[in-house]
């Protein structure tokens, strides 16, 4: 059979979410995936026997609980386990242990800075207030501010009401917040550099910005607005790796009769008379559908899977200029034992949490300078977590693996294309840095998977290896995502939609983009909505 109600391109978590909701509404849905495994960037891969890496994304906090509950992902094998604690390492070996327990955390901060220990309460309250507002928009379609349709006007009024609800002073603060740098924002609260650097690191993850670049404050918010079971700011690991999320979504999809076809990369989206009518696969197969949904990023969708002639003028250029710069790498390391870190209490809890090799604000800014000059950071910011310390299923008993997210790493190097040698040197940079804080680390290494933006683009399909499918700056957020006028998941070609992280609310394993797109598609088809409303702890 090669005729479907809907074809979704890309079996990443948003594509699977989108397909699951379309299938739930009774549509015949096919998800086509270029790899011989599903998951996109939410994937678990056994690259060395006995070790299961979350090759790309490694933790989650934005996964919409309402979707998890509604699609019964637990039944399909998903167990999200929150992990506790985090240690930040400074340039000179100083450490800051973040505890889940409020009292313990206060005492730890106080040891470094009594002022900041105190100020942290105000910072968290303010961030929580901002996050509360943004969180409400995640499972909603952004309004078109230029439209006079009642639906857009209602949604704009709703949004305005939420903003006005903050009060006049907070409104000013909020607008400032969207355009500030993470470092400048934190300046108003904190005095200690390590504490500032630790907080600011959330403002650069996945983005080609430095801690002093305007716009990084919002990214910080994007990383603290999530929650696990109502614990705001908490992060969870999926038991079995991030692929468990995709697998459970696939389970929900298949339960509703949806299908997945592997090894089915899309060469072109078929357009007839300004309407999307199907796809041509790389092997030449033509598949037809009434609806085509792209879970690929905006740049890839329009510049690689479509003919410029099929598109209205301007869109092709918008896609070409879509800001999706690669800035990060990922180094997954299988270990023969649990690494020990200098200056970290050796107890059953703390040395199992996450590690943030932040150095200082200056070190992070210099790391960004390297990227601007077309090379990877010589002294990079690394955010690490040891999933095997929390999940007994991802490494053999007593063995571990460490996920290292590295910033910065450019998609294109100044001295010519990426080569396996350069990739290895990049990997060694990371090992060297960790070794500085964990003597003997190198000896524990059993296997390594080094992923630069080059590998991430080649394997996952994310342009430039950008983890968010497009940067999360104000010019590409809300009704500007991916482009102004196209933020409601409908694309300029009739019957064509987008459902990936290039759309609102952007990157992160949230399932929100896919669900929002499904709601819009069902509305166009005049079918009953199958997508649940979001559910909040702080309402």
């Amino acid at each position: 059979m090669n005729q479907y109600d809907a074809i979704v391109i890309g079996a990443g978590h948003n594509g699977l979410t989108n397909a699951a909701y379309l299938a739930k509404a009774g549509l015949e849905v096919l998800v086509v995936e270029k790899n011989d495994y599903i998951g996109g960037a939410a994937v678990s891969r056994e690259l060395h026997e006995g070790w299961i890496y979350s090759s790309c994304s490694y933790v989650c906090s934005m996964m919409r609980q309402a979707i998890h509950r509604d699609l019964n992902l637990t039944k399909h094998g998903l167990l999200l386990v929150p992990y506790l604690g985090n240690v930040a390492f400074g340039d000179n070996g100083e450490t800051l242990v973040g505890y889940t327990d409020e009292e313990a955390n206060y005492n730890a901060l106080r040891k470094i800075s009594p002022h900041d220990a105190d100020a942290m309460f105000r910072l968290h309250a303010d961030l929580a207030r901002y996050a509360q507002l943004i969180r409400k928009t995640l499972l909603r379609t952004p309004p078109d501010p230029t439209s006079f349709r009642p639906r857009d006007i209602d949604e704009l009024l709703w949004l305005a009401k939420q903003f006005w609800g903050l009060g006049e002073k907070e409104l000013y603060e909020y607008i400032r917040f969207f355009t500030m740098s993470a470092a400048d924002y934190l300046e108003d609260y904190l005095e200690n550099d390590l504490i500032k650097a630790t907080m600011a690191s959330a403002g650069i993850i996945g983005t080609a910005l430095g801690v002093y670049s305007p716009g990084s404050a919002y990214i910080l918010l994007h990383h603290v607005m999530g929650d696990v079971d109502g614990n705001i700011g908490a992060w969870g690991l999926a038991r079995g790796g991030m692929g468990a999320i995709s697998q459970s979504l696939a389970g929900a999809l298949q339960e509703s009769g949806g299908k997945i076809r592997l090894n089915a990369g899309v060469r072109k989206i078929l357009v007839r008379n300004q309407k999307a009518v199907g796809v041509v696969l790389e092997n030449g197969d033509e598949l037809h559908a009434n609806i085509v949904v792209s879970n690929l990023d905006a740049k890839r969708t329009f510049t690689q899977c479509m003919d410029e002639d099929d598109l209205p003028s301007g869109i092709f250029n918008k896609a070409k200029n879509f800001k999706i710069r690669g800035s990060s790498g990922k180094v997954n390391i299988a270990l023969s034992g649990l690494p020990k870190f200098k200056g970290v209490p050796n107890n059953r809890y703390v040395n199992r949490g996450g590690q943030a090799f932040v150095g200082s604000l200056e070190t992070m800014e210099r790391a960004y300078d390297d990227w601007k000059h077309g090379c990877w950071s010589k002294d990079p910011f690394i955010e690490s977590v040891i999933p095997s310390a929390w999940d007994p299923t991802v490494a053999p008993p007593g063995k571990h693996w460490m996920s290292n997210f590295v910033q910065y790493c450019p998609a294109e190097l100044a001295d010519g294309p990426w080569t396996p040698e350069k990739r290895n040197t990049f990997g060694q940079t990371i090992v060297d840095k960790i070794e500085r804080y964990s003597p003997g680390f190198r000896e524990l290494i059993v296997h390594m998977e080094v992923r630069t933006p080059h590998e991430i683009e080649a394997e996952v399909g994310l342009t430039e290896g950008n983890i968010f499918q497009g940067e999360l700056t104000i010019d590409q957020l809300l009704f500007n995502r991916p482009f102004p006028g196209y933020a409601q998941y409908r694309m300029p070609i009739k019957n064509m939609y987008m459902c990936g992280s290039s759309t609102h609310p952007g990157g992160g394993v949230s399932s929100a983009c896919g669900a929002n797109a499904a709601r819009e598609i069902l509305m166009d088809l005049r079918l009953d909505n199958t997508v649940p409303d979001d559910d909040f702890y702080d309402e």
Partner: protein
Amino acid sequence: MGDSNTITVDPFEEERPKETHFHARMAVLNIRENWAAWNGYKLANYFYDAEYEYFCVRNGCGTYDICGMQKYFVSGKDAEAMLNRMVTRDISEMNVDRVTYLVWCTDEGRLIDDGTVFKLGHEHFMLTCGSPSLAWLEKSCYGFKDVSIVDMSERIAALALQGPTSCEVLKKMGLKDIDTLKPFGIKHFPFGASKDKPLMVSRTGFTGDLGYELWIKPELALEMWDSLYDAGEDYHIQPFGEAALNMARMEAGFIMPLMEFNEALKTIHFRHDHTPFQLSLDWLVDFKKPHFNGRAALLKEQHDGPEYTLVKLDIEGNKPAEECNVYSDKGCENEIGYVTSAMWSPVVKANIALAMVKTKYLKGEIWAEIYYNKELRSYTKVSRCTVKEKPFWTHPRSRATPPLPY
């Protein structure tokens, strides 16, 4: 300040909670110093973080101190007949080395307590339960010649090991063929220097997942703990307290005294205790066996149907419906029952509750009026409830022998 020769007497000694046989190890791990008490013993409410410990039970494995549980040896030629007259379930078909869950009632058919019976030999049983029951047991011996009751509560150290990796840990500890032990089975193992088999393991628990309970004499308790924790190190072993246990048992749909039921012998008002039928424990009442305590009253209850029935509710939203009433209408005018336990279930991602609802309203709409607090302000929310037939959480590995891989 006395010098080192002064013998100091703790004037509060008698009042302080007793320490269990595992206390020395647990005290070190109780970072938060958060202790509750159970039958006079100190018992951790949580050690580090209640939710973390709960996740250890669902993801790796955890240990729960059950020294505070009451344990009675019931022995003699008439032991089986005596127990069979006392409890509502038929235990005459039980094999040696098997365990069964059961309840016992007053003559009025009201639930006194629930517990488990271990058949340790043809004329030798162990009864375990949450509350001291010596007086009732002795009363229940009336008319039987050859039966003796010995309170073993302080003479057996017991530890529950629960969670997906629990079988692997016991294997690593050297318990041969532990994976062939079936649910509700018992096996005896050699341990330490002892020549006999001093370690008894039952495949039982209170978390709704794979799990075991370990029984040993107090002198070997700490050695067993150490051996277990050595073996468990690579399998994510963690002690858990009452808070985590309460979460896990609610997801499994298990009842707790003072939550779901008030023990009949401690109840002042006759309408405040329960029959097994009200608690949806019909399957524990066997009218085919010879006479037992409460039989006539329970027959009548079965015929008339219970006024209230304990049900599992899935509630909209995420605000736990703790201590709230339920209604048959959204306007909350017709009250039809009350919630006994409620929580947000982190693994199922559902707002769950156990509730006593008037049986005749079970087919209709059920609404919960939920109260919650936010920064000192009190809020109310009315949420729709759906009755669930199955436990909120189960896993096939908990029934499989050998258990499925973790």
